[in-house]
């Protein structure tokens, strides 16, 4: 990354931060200043909140160690998380999670079991609403959005335990993924208006096109639940792609696959990225896959980021080795 660009990025994130991270007191004070209301007078009289803002404000460093592939440096990142966190009861399941995924980056999210990786995915897709922090999808804040809204905005995912629509056919599964790409309202559907026939043709064409990416077009009429395991995983990816995402989240895409299937999958992920020009963020335990295709990697342990960098950097990081292998008392 060029130095100039790095500085520019930092300046931009700082500016954003200033807006987002303004403390409640300072916000209130600023609002009051503008209006010169009773509140401002009160604040001036006591003098506390004003003073606090100038003197007592705790300044924190912003995460500026973001890295993205050089080709994406001039583009808005596909995904940015800042200080993301969620509590379950008293437990900080994810804390201070910072991440940037470049426009066409293939990024990896790894960590031991129970580190909070899937929770991060659930936060990104708003299955859980984050307790703290912001998520920017292609520069847009997704605060308070529902799962279906963020999907429409451009985030798609697959699930660790496959969640297809098992009683429907392969083609129907993809058509459902295309839900927001082809429009046809209830009335045109019920009365079979010309719009319906056009839409159905479009659905059919697009879904076969997408299935073809994985060479599954010949299985279009099979019932999804009857497909072999590997094919179900592939279908889930196709369905996610059908939503025309900017970021594709893959939750353990290689789980349960044999080495040859995994190697096909690696080729396919790269192919998808190249063909659709999207970012991919994947959770995976298969290190050959992660180190083989990921450009940037984030390591999570106990809900916190313990390392990030290129595959080489991460592999050499002592903290990562410790998290995966436990503390070694003596050199073996």
């Amino acid at each position: 990354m060029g130095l100039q660009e790095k500085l520019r990025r930092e300046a931009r994130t700082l500016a954003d931060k200033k807006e987002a991270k303004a403390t409640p007191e300072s916000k209130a004070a600023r609002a009051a200043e503008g209006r010169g209301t009773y509140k401002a007078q009160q604040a001036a009289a006591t003098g506390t909140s004003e003073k606090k803002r100038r003197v007592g404000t705790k300044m924190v460093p912003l995460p500026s160690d973001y890295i993205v592939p050089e080709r994406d440096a001039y583009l808005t990142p596909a995904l940015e998380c800042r200080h993301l966190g969620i509590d379950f009861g008293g437990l900080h399941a994810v804390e201070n999670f910072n991440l940037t995924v470049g426009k066409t980056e293939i990024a990896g999210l790894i960590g031991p079991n129970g580190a909070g990786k899937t929770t991060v995915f659930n936060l990104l897709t708003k299955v859980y609403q984050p307790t703290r922090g912001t998520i920017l999808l292609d520069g847009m804040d997704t605060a308070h959005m529902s799962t279906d809204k963020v999907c429409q905005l451009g985030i798609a995912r697959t699930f660790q335990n496959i969640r297809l629509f098992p009683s429907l056919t392969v083609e129907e599964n993809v058509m459902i993924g295309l839900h927001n790409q082809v429009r046809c309202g209830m009335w045109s559907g019920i009365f079979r208006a010309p719009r319906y026939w056009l839409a159905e043709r479009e659905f059919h064409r697009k879904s076969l096109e997408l299935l073809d990416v994985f060479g599954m077009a010949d299985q279009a009429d099979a019932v999804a639940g009857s497909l072999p395991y590997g094919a179900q995983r592939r279908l889930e990816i196709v369905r996610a792609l059908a939503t025309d995402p900017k970021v594709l989240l893959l939750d353990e895409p290689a789980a349960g696959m044999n080495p040859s299937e995994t190697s096909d999958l690696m080729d396919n992920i790269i192919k998808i990225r190249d063909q659709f020009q999207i970012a991919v963020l994947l959770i995976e335990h298969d290190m050959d896959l992660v180190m083989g295709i990921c450009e940037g990697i984030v390591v999570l342990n106990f809900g916190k980021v313990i390392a990030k960098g290129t595959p080489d950097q991460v592999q050499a990081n002592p903290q990562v080795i410790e998290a995966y292998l436990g503390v070694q008392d003596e050199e073996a």
Partner: protein
Amino acid sequence: MGFLSNVVNGISLGSVYAIIALGYTMVYGIAKMLNFAHGDVIMVGGYLSFISMVYLGLHPVFAVLIAICGCTVLGILIERLAYKPLREASSLDVLITAIGVSYLLQNLALLIWKSDPKVYPSVIQAEPLRFFEGQLIISPVSLVTVLVNILIMVGLTLFTTRTRMGKAMRACSEDKGAAQLMGIDVDKTISLTFAIGSGLAAIAGVLLCSAYPTLMPTTGSMPGIKAFTAAVVGGIGSIPGALLGGLLLGVAEIFAKAYISTQFSDAIVFAVLIIVLLVRPSGLLGKPVNVKV
């Protein structure tokens, strides 16, 4: 004084709801299913005690015991025959089966005992208590109902916290898989839950019929649904919740009848159910459940 006697009637009716609600809440807590047929077990309890007293001429105490035994056996049978094969089925299928069982009991009762309402002789034969120079009359049935309710609540709380079987029950309601790994016989525990719930339903049936002495094959369905409401209001799976919900609902129903409208009292009770389910689906004393993705 009208107000006071309304309160007394409300608490008495609420106590019956609370006893029925216990059956719902325990089964829901452990088997995670809405036992729709629970209300009809109440009706069976009513008929069993009625037959014992009127046709067989037994002492009310024996009649109550027969009803309890009969309903306990019925509860275990229902669980074994209808619900156990559906442990792995979808909740939609289980609920439909439960509705089927409820319907089956009602229509069997209709065939055996016919549709004409029976006049139920109260199990407690005593003079009503009079207070404030006869302005507040408390029927002995109300008094006994409240006392029985207190006894059951205390007994059940002790049972679930102190005994081995009770602890096993709580373990099953937390996590069936883990309980099984700890050597708890889950099937036996579920059967026990149904047995206790149905036994309590029999007691509730006797008390309900003593207070409102018309017995029909459909006697149990309305109180059943209302008691389920009570269980939800209190927080499903919670024993104190069943008590609280039952009392609240009983008082609300009597007050609605007295001060708002007799015709719309059922609608009001159901409106309470809907509001509670929407505003606080986990109930007053329940804990929220998180969906795992």
